[in-house]
């Protein structure tokens, strides 16, 4: 490292690091492991400095072997430790899917309630940085399909900072998805904030005409769309799901009961995706409150392309969200 760090506003990355530091300091059973988390500081710089502070036992570099180290996390958790496993990106997590689904999510049930797995897995998700088809997918909706795990998608600095402690306190596996486009987002986490209630979605903006339901990397776009709609006197309410499993549909439904219109925004693919689940629940439980078909703004059904104009076309964008909201409002 050359030169002194310039002072600057904290980023989402800093908030995640602060949460890790707090967790490591608070409980000696907690340790962090993953590819390049130690000496390198994390592929995306999240764990920078933690090795110096906590040593190589608690900040462990692993070989490139997702199945092995995620499985080791499962075992360590069963044995009473509180591992935090970092998988570099969600695309690489597929190499560990067997361990996550067939072990972490299943052991408690399969053992008749004997073997709990208090494991936290962190990974980067999402597109928008021209990283092409093997580093850009949003598969958190897939994970939300799995019973036995909790799935979190912190979209704000506060959630990045205050979701980890309750995730570690959860007796069951928790998978946390950090959207790659958020790491450099700046802000100031509320210093006095309490741990996030992991069972609750958050209303990020109040409105009366249409509900925009989203999570993670699309939250900023939804809020921007809401601002743009406001100039046309359309007041959009923005719901950040933030916990994708178990899904707090009550918050979204209460909002739709007020606004009578819903737009679901999900960077993941449309077919059989998370947006389909949200839309189905609105149809099941909020049918008589609807005054327009549920709109969905999703990632195009294509492996994410490299070229900038194609990638942008493949992802939900503000203009598309605005158009969907206008269609819903009529």
């Amino acid at each position, binding site marked *: 490292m050359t030169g002194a760090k310039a002072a600057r506003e904290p980023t989402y990355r800093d908030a995640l690091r602060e949460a890790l530091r707090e967790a490591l300091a608070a409980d000696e059973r907690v340790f962090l492991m993953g590819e390049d988390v130690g000496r390198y500081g994390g592929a995306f710089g999240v764990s920078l400095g933690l090795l110096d502070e906590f040593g190589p036992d608690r900040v462990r570099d692993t070989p490139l072997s997702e199945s092995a180290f995620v499985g080791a996390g499962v075992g360590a958790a069963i044995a009473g430790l509180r591992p935090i496993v970092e998988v570099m990106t969600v695309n690489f997590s597929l190499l560990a899917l067997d361990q996550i689904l067939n072990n972490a999510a299943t052991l408690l049930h399969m053992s008749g309630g004997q073997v709990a797995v208090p494991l936290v897995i962190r990974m980067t998700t999402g597109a928008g940085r021209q990283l092409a088809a093997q580093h850009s997918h949003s598969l958190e909706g897939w994970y939300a399909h799995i019973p036995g795990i909790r799935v979190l998608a912190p979209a704000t600095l506060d959630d990045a900072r205050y979701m980890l402690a309750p995730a570690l306190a959860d007796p069951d596996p928790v998978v946390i998805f950090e959207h790659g486009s958020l790491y450099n987002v700046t802000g100031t986490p509320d210093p006095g904030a309490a741990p996030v209630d992991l069972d609750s979605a958050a209303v990020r903006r109040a409105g009366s005409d249409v509900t925009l339901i989203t999570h993670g990397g699309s939250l900023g776009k939804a809020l921007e769309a809401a601002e743009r709609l406001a100039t046309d006197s359309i007041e959009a309410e923005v719901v950040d799901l933030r916990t994708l499993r178990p899904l707090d549909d009550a918050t979204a439904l209460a909002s739709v009961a007020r606004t009578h219109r819903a737009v679901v925004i999900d960077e993941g693919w449309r077919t059989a995706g998370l947006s389909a689940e949200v839309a189905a629940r609105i149809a099941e439980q909020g049918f008589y409150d609807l*005054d327009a078909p549920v709109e969905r703004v999703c990632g195009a059904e294509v492996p994410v392309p490299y070229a900038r104009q194609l990638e942008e076309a493949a992802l939900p964008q503000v203009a598309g969200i605005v158009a969907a909201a206008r269609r819903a409002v009529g």
Partner: protein
Amino acid sequence: MAEFTMPALGADMTEGTLLEWLVHPGDRVARGDIVAVVDTAKAAIEVECFETGTVERLLVEPGATVPVGAAMAVIDTVKSAPEPAPGLAPEPARAGGPGATPLVRHLAEDSGVDLAAVHGTGPGGRITRADVVAAVPGKWTGKRQVAPRRPATGAQALPSGSRVRATPLARRVAAEAGLDLATVTGTGTDGAVRVSDVRAVIGTASPPTPPPTPPAPSPESAQTRAAADRQQAMRRAVGDLMARSKREIPHYYLSTTVGLSPAIDWLRARNRQLPVSKRLVPAALLLKAAALAAREVPQLNGFWTDGGFVRAPAVHLGVAVALRGGGLVAPAIHDAADLSPAELMARLRDLVTRARAGRLRGSETTDPTITVTSLGDQGVEAVFGVIYPPQVALVGLGRVVERPWAVDGMLGVRPVVTATLSADHRASDGATGARYLAALDRLLQKPEEL
């Protein structure tokens, strides 16, 4: 001369902070030399220059954060070849603002946007990618990218004549108001009726507190059982009343067909100038005519009690309302003959809503002096009903249909309605009944006077 600019050092880097200069003005630099250290929010990175020459001057102080592509230093490039034409030199930083990153410049170029005309919303007024995209509506984001094989929402115009397209909420509110959705003009996609259209017709600007959503029918729930009990009781009460009516009242029946061309034409002309909420439907005229005819023929407007007919002082028009899940009530619209068609319509809606919600006032259930039953919306052409004791007459109205119709020896296709009368032979006879139907017909030919 060449510029040393803030390099792009990562997939998500838009700006960097200069930590330190490793060169000073006057220093010789060669292509590939490390000249500065930049903080990219991920780490401090040594950056190289791509020119060979002498550092002319440094434009940025350590600690400053500048966007990718911004000039940080000027390098005097020693070249044996003549300098390239000035037009080939990299664009100097924009005066009066930090300008835009190369990415944004490319985007602007690709999209044919003149950056000079774009308002920057980025830090320090910098033009961001979003600003450029906003300046090209539809270029990258807004327009539909591909024609899908099928519309994504499945929203297609239904063949005409099929069921009304309406949103669930609109259906719910319309049903509570007793409003026939077919009479509502939809403003939604493909003419779908939305709740605002319904509320415009009902005239409630603000939504009432929504009642709890009816529970999904699970066969064994207590609520379902209670509802079933209520229905059975209602069925029994209606059955008892009608049995008594048929046992005790010697009915006679008359029928006539009334031409509705003037009424429908007048309605159409009137409605054209009115907002949706003020528009009338044919039923309003029919009710008004039925009430006026009852005033003209008072022998049909009243009660049979204690073996004699008692004429009623006013026309309280009973309207038969079918309840959800079966059953029937026929509450009164008080002083119906004195109301305008528009007032009648509003009263009718209010009555239907409250009847179906089980919130009728006592007087409404006991006061009717003559009752109208209309099964037109069920597609029935003629209704021969059973009189509600102690009333002595019941008017039946069928559907408004188009029929070949002769007027003054000329045949045309006209809208007509079949009006029937069931009357108590103890209180009147056929001639009286015929006068009633004739009056009804006459009144409907002058809709403007109703």
